[in-house]
């Protein structure tokens, strides 16, 4: 059968299955079965069995449930309150005051929990009422939260980077190193925008309470931040130093967060078992998607579609910059309807050979992909952070999306920066090679 006809049938089947609401993981498996049937492969079932086994036992994937569990434990501690109380006095002098608390606590919480929508929910539940009480501009309060809620995708340990690393077969340690600087840069961009906005809208500065912090308050505040700093330092430090694999660092993180919850008195047996069930639910969801994606990648290899696509792109004579511009728009549109994980696994199954062939570094591409997925988290109609904040505030989703728009633009700026200066992402991983 002609390969473009196969491609057409597959795209049609995919759209039908996705739109009608078939589970993403099963859609991926189903597409792979259809693809193999179309090329009359005779051992589909055997391929499925062996591919499911190798996909679900990958050592690099073992970090995934552990980081998820660590996040689930931390969501049930006082960590988010401590962050808020610790950061508020320190940031009180910056134009925008507590708006920066939104940004930084999301950034820091994301760095320890690895999850995006849950970060926005945990931080927002606490900061939004407080910001409202002190009379902050509502749109900025929601916008900073929606924007920085996406930071969890990029700042290591990021779940989505693990998924990309496993699916694209690149080192997760390197991806974590590559995500660090762009993540910090994005925090910087968000804060810079907030400062500029606050300077331009001085009349919206109504917060008097933040003026009254004394030096002693700041010292007490710093003490509240100490456990978090130790936890981040321990987890990320041990990976970056090369003394622990991401999996081992994650296991240490689980132990550390359990310890933290016991020491701060928020540990309970009910909370503990809820954290396990929560971790099981997310891990199984992601695990089955990866099993499906692995099988789809295999099937696509048999059909030859990705290579065909790569050859076609090569014939168009696109420069890699042009390719990236097209891909950015493609991913943003895709992200309007699919969640981030699905975008990532579909990309690695189909687009990756094309990307590798045009000379784009796969580590860099992972960071780029995650940035575009971050944008898609705050674009309607399907944007998970929008859903979370919608349910927190009761605001219309379009209102939330509009409030988040400046931060959407800041992520776009970050994509432009890492495209012009790839070293923002690639400098830290390159240090690892030299050692």
């Amino acid at each position, binding site marked *: 059968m002609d390969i473009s006809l196969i491609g057409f049938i597959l795209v049609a089947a995919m759209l039908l299955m996705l*739109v*009608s*609401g*078939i*589970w*993403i*993981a*099963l859609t991926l*498996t*189903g597409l792979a*079965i259809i693809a193999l049937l179309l090329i009359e492969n005779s051992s589909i*079932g*055997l391929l*499925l*069995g062996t591919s*499911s*086994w190798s996909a*679900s*036992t*990958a050592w690099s*994937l*073992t970090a995934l*449930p*552990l980081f998820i*569990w660590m996040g*689930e434990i931390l*969501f049930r501690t006082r960590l988010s309150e401590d962050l808020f109380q610790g950061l508020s006095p320190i940031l009180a002098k910056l134009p925008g005051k507590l708006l920066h608390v939104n940004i930084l606590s999301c950034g820091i919480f994301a760095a320890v929990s690895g*999850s995006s929508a*849950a970060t926005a929910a*945990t931080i927002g539940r606490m900061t939004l009422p407080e910001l409202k009480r002190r009379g902050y501009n509502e749109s900025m309060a929601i916008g900073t939260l929606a924007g920085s809620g996406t930071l969890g995708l990029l700042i290591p340990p990021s779940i989505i980077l693990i998924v990309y690393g496993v699916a694209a077969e690149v080192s997760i340690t390197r991806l974590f190193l590559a995500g660090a600087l762009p993540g910090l840069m994005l925090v910087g961009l968000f804060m810079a925008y907030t400062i500029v906005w606050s300077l331009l809208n001085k009349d919206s500065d109504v917060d008097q309470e933040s003026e009254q912090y004394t030096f002693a308050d700041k010292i007490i505040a710093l003490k509240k931040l100490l456990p978090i700093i130790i936890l981040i330092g321990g987890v990320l430090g041990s990976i970056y130093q090369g003394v*622990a694999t991401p*999996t*081992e660092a*994650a*296991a*240490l993180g*689980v*132990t550390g967060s359990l310890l933290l919850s016991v020491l701060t008195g928020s540990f309970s047996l009910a909370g503990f*078992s809820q954290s*396990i*069930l*929560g971790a*099981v*639910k*997310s*891990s*199984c*969801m992601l*695990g*089955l*998607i990866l*099993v499906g994606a692995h099988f789809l990648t295999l099937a696509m290899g048999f059909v030859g579609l990705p290579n065909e696509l790569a050859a076609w792109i090569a014939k168009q004579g696109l420069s890699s910059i042009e390719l990236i511009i097209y891909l950015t728009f493609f991913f943003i549109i895709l992200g309007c*309807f*699919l*969640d981030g994980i*699905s975008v990532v696994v579909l990309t690695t199954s189909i687009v990756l050979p094309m990307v590798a062939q045009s000379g784009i570094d796969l580590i860099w591409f992972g960071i780029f992909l995650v940035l575009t997925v971050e944008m898609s988290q705050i674009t309607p109609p*399907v944007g998970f952070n929008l*859903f*979370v904040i919608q*349910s927190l505030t009761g605001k219309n989703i379009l209102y939330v999306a509009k409030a988040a728009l400046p931060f959407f633009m800041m992520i776009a700026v970050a994509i432009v920066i890492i495209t012009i200066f790839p070293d923002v992402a690639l400098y830290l991983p390159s240090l690892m090679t030299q050692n």
Partner: protein
Amino acid sequence: MDKIRRLFYVASAWGAGSCLIAMTLLIISQIVARLIGVVIPSSEDFAGWLLSAIIFFGLAYTFNNGGHIRVTIALSRFSSRYRHLVEYFNLAIGLLISGYLAYYTAFTVYESFVYEELTDTYLAVPIGFVQLPMAIGSICLFLAMLDSLSIMIAGRVPNYISAEDNIDIEG
């Protein structure tokens, strides 16, 4: 019947949950062992096998709690009668794919047992034994979908739909 049903999903959840705890303990002991200069043989392979057990054992529980993600944006806009029909279609296709998965993962495990294959790790274990959770979990996912179908035929709303409709943002 309801009691068996509840037991089934609790078993799925805690089957996966206990493997998660076991995996964490294994990796912690691997770190501790390395610090004191001992090597735990094949610990990375065992961690991988436990991972597979976590993923597959928990599938049924995750499904029943609306945990497996899907695109619901079109679905939520249909009228309730039309939505009902589409859900039947989804469950039918879902049963087809998960049934296929269940049959062939079980077949893979069966073959591993028949040919008495051993793992190529330092500690050689029968592959069929460590692959067993994959087959059991896939079959349980199929059963969970069958369960939802039977609930829908009986005229009630399956749990996965009601769980999706009030998404707990704490995940």
